[in-house]
């Protein structure tokens, strides 16, 4: 004879066909489809998706677009022209190539750091919301971390650990998860109190099952918004660290272009050195921010228009 607990968790897969699980499963794609429809109709959302996609493509195909800016040129600090679209820097390197190759670093750091921060932050948030005792400890740590000035702390660690892409990703991830936990936790706590979670508790004694099948899907929309916002903040943090001279010295990044312009004292004379990387940062971060805002609007049935609610999918497809 198995104990009731293990018996229930073994029976758990069958739970998926029971009503409570079923509504979650079939409702999710429908809600997602409605969100996607609404998102597609928003020109701002389409534009920001296009810009994000374009920058990612530039990052992926950087070698096809421009040569790696390593060779010193003879034309030093020349303004933008036909041969050098974004001008050249104080060592004669092509700024266009630097910006194109710099997009790789920004996007890699943004994706890696936000992936780590989101995974850790979401996990701690949902586990904390389920086990209330853990939540108290977690809440204190999150509050304490959020109360500190993060950039000086990141600078201290990056300087101690030595500048490298790995350091930057780790440092940014290490100080981004508390914000994710704070946002996801507030949602997860209200979800855990809902009756379908109580129903799930009757069917299985495995908290891992309840958390992964019932709590996580319910907080997923908040997590999606968090991913985009965390990624865009990571771009800003990475650029800030690179601007202070803590970027990976072997890799081009947008922050490094600004740092080298400052080091060479060329900031005052060569506007193109600072303008183009700045524009690149602004484009990426603005597109990501707009995307998260329009996603937030699109998934809210009340904001989709009076007749586009989730309960009336027919009318939504008008």
């Amino acid at each position: 004879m198995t104990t009731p607990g293990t018996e229930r968790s073994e029976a758990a897969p069958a739970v998926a066909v029971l009503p409570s699980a079923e509504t979650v499963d079939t409702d999710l794609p429908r809600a997602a489809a409605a969100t996607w429809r609404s998102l597609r109709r928003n020109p701002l959302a389409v534009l920001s998706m296009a810009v994000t996609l374009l920058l990612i493509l530039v990052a992926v195909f950087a070698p096809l677009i421009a040569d790696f800016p390593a060779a010193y040129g003879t034309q030093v600090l020349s303004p933008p022209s036909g041969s050098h679209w974004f001008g050249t820097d104080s060592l004669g390197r092509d700024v266009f190539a630097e910006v194109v190759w710099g997009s790789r670093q920004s996007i890699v750091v943004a994706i890696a750091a936000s992936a780590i921060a989101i995974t850790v932050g979401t996990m701690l948030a949902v586990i904390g919301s389920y086990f209330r005792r853990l939540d108290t400890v977690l809440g204190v740590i999150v509050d304490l971390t959020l109360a500190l000035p993060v950039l000086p702390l990141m600078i201290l660690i990056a300087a101690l650990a030595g500048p490298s892409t790995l350091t930057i990703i780790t440092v940014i991830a290490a100080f981004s998860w508390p914000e994710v936990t704070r946002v996801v936790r507030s949602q997860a706590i209200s979800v855990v109190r809902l009756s379908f979670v109580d129903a799930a508790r009757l069917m299985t004694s495995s908290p891992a099952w309840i958390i992964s099948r019932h709590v996580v899907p319910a907080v997923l929309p908040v997590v999606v918004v968090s991913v985009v916002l965390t990624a865009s903040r990571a771009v800003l943090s990475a650029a800030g660290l690179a601007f202070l001279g803590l970027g990976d010295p072997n890799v081009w990044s947008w922050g490094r272009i600004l740092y080298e312009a400052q080091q060479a004292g060329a900031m005052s004379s060569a506007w193109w050195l600072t303008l183009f990387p700045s524009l690149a940062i602004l484009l990426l971060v603005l597109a990501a921010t707009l995307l998260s805002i329009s996603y937030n609007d699109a998934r809210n049935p009340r904001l989709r228009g009076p007749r586009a609610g989730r309960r009336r999918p027919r009318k939504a497809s008008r």
Partner: protein
Amino acid sequence: MSLFTFVLRKIGRALLTIFFAVTVTFLLLRLLPGDPAQAVANPNMTAEMRATLLTQYGLDQSLLTQYGKYLWQLLHGNLGVSFAQGVPVTTVLMERLPWTLLLTGSALILTALIGIPLGVLAASRRGGWLDRAVQILGVIGQSLFVPSVGILLLYVFGLKLGWFSIGGAYADGTYGAQWYLSVLSHLVLPCLSLVLIQLGPYLLMMRSSMIDALGEDYCTLARANGLPYRRVLWRHALRNALLPTITLIGLQLGFLVGGAVLTETVYAYPGIGRGIYEAVTQLDFPVLQGAFVLLAATVVVANMITDLAYGLLDPRVKNR
């Protein structure tokens, strides 16, 4: 809960946060890869000098003893000695702290002076052109890269138009009223950069909490009683809508300090932020560590003050 216990609790919380920051710094210095002596000492030293330094800094003792000594030193305001300048870190930082406080303080006040009225006006005419402008500004404001804004203002208003002085915090060889004028002239652009980067969240928060307040029954009642709309807006709604904005100040302080580090670097403004940049270039770890501890303590104390102000303004908070 009485006011006394409320204040005590806030002070206790602030002390706990500072203690947390200090402990994190201590652990970081010891746990990060590499010999702690390497982190604390110049890499160009002989083994013998390092051994002396190890004993001098007490790095040959147990972690707990080291931690106790570290806390004891901190309590006496001792943050170690700067490698690059050979003077106590406290001296280096205390020279710089007033400039950072001047910069961030003036930026905070200016942000409130611009952000609060704009948010109120945007909420008062929802959907109007000002409301749209405020929303757009709020979104763009969240996406700005601090050095980019700083460089842009520096280039346009400092170099091309020459309206304001740049580089440093004052002109050498000026005295009296002239000195104050030069301080002001050097302050304008860095301060404006900080205002621009942190205005967005204040605008959005002020707007949305005003919209909430205007929808409350007491505002409807005030208007039904025949009070002029302007009075309802600025007297009744604003008072309540200000509370979430005060909370926002506390949440944004850490971000403001980060922005100050980058802005001071762009403008060569002699505050702690520029000090951090110079310490990074010289790998001056005691200064970096001390700067973080000092900035953290400043932020925590400022945060405590906003918390206390909140408690005084909203009696409900004390009773929770």
